């Protein structure tokens, strides 16, 4: 906990290659005559081991920003560096773990085969990467999925499928985990359980995470830093640090501090709606 607080307080810009920096990102969609800016002038630093959440009304470009960091969309202007590497290099050395909105598992593969997929792809790999990869079986067991290794995705619940998708993103021990509303397709109870699971997981390995959500409670419960975005065009409205103690368990949700942060985020979000540009 003291370690964590120190990291949060220590706002001295760390070396640029330690963490993720997003500098001056602009992106517009549409043809030349009719271009709509989706994100404008986004600057953000994510330090090693930080859990950063992007939140905002729909259409604020939070998913677009995440997809730019994932290398799925090229920005018009600006750059992203992931631990000093370009996005392309980071993808090639499998430093990026991506968890989309739906589990996006391959239905013809069993659970364990799905988790092995990243190991089978782009195998012209350095020995360094092989060392990083973890044993899929052990990984799934640590995710509480040891009993379903040989089942097919359609035999699992939605929550378990999403867990498999997260395990797949973890198999190469990525430097950054990018999650695009991973629990939005789940029902309330499954979402709660998955959120707890992710919290435990994060607390045990302190991975750098960029997480997109539209749930304020989810953002507050999970994050170190909440980035509030406004829409049309998508800009960073404000960055709110979440100074809640870790590890966070059931009690956190009922604490006064939690509600304070939650109220602040809600207030800022209301502001973003109140100012149509």
């Amino acid at each position: 906990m003291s370690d964590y607080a120190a990291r949060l307080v220590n706002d001295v810009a760390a070396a640029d290659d330690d963490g993720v920096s997003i500098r001056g990102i602009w992106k517009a969609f549409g043809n030349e005559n009719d271009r709509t800016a989706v994100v404008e002038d986004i600057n953000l630093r994510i330090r090693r081991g930080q859990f950063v959440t992007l939140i905002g009304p729909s259409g604020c470009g939070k998913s677009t920003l995440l997809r730019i960091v994932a290398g799925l969309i090229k920005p018009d202007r600006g750059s992203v560096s992931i631990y000093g590497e370009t996005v392309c290099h980071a993808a090639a050395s499998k430093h990026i773990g991506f968890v989309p909105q739906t589990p996006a598992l391959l239905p013809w593969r069993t659970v364990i085969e799905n988790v092995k997929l990243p190991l089978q792809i782009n195998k012209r790999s350095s020995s360094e990467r092989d060392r990083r990869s973890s044993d899929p079986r052990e990984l799934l067991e640590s995710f509480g999925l040891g009993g379903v290794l040989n089942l097919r995705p359609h035999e699992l619940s939605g929550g378990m499928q999403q867990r498999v998708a997260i395990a797949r993103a973890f198999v190469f021990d990525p430097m950054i985990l990018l999650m695009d509303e991973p629990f939005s397709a789940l029902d309330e109870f499954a979402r709660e359980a998955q959120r707890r699971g992710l919290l435990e997981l994060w607390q045990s390995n302190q991975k750098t995470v960029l997480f997109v959500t539209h749930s304020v409670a989810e953002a507050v419960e999970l994050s170190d830093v909440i980035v509030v975005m406004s829409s049309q065009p998508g800009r960073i409205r404000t960055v709110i640090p979440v100074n809640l103690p870790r590890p966070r368990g059931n009690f956190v949700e009922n604490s006064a501090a939690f509600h304070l942060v939650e109220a602040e985020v809600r207030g800022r979000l209301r502001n973003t709606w109140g100012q149509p540009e």
Partner: protein
Amino acid sequence: MTGAPGNDPQSASVNPKKSRWRAMGMQMWIPPLVCFGVIVLAWQLYAVHNAYVIPTVPQIVDQFRTQPGLYWHDMLITLQEAVVGASCGMAAAFLLAVLMSRNRVLERSLMPLAVVLNVTPIVAIAPGLVVAFGFGFTPKYIIAGVIVFFPFLVNALVGLRSPDPEVHDVFITLYASRWEVLWHLELPSCLPYLFAAARICLPLSLIGAVVAEFSAAGETTGLGSLIQTSANQADLKAVYASVVVLALLGIGMTSSIVMLQRRLLSWHSSSRTRSQ
């Protein structure tokens, strides 16, 4: 469908799995068998009184008893024409679909040609092909191939484009090459579409082979040429016996595709029974 005798799980008390299986088997097989029996009976009744229009059922069966070698030999030839032609046609269609799925320009330039090939009646092309390629197997292969080409191409193209964009995103973040995306994602996603297409295409190729034989029996005497020569000699028994063999051949082709599909695509919803 009315009623489901024996399908009630509570009525199957001793060995629910086994008796349900039997009940399902009965339900599946009895209605078509009854229909078939009624039609054979009606045929026989009509044939007995109209001997010059259609042969009776025993007469047809008798053909196979007296000349098994003839039908077996001609069946093998027609089967060869259909299967070889269809395999080449499907392989070519699939390769083209892979190329088209990579390259929109290629698709736009070649798709209209494929459509023209498809809408031209195959019967109209057959005589010309015989002139060009002679009386051997070649024109038969070509016709059987041409007839399956378009349905297979369209299905393969839809199948190759069927994967969910989010799965595609995962592959991109893993820095997968185009080849890896094709092998690990697009091909397996395409398989259900290919099987659906094959179920249509293999019986179609049988039509192609028979039509080709009608145009020019030549050296290859398959069931189509047997039908033609028998019809010219007013040998109705042989005509209908050949038709029966062709029908059985079609059933055999379709069911072997279905069996292969069940085995290979157990993960796909089309192979799962609804009760699960």
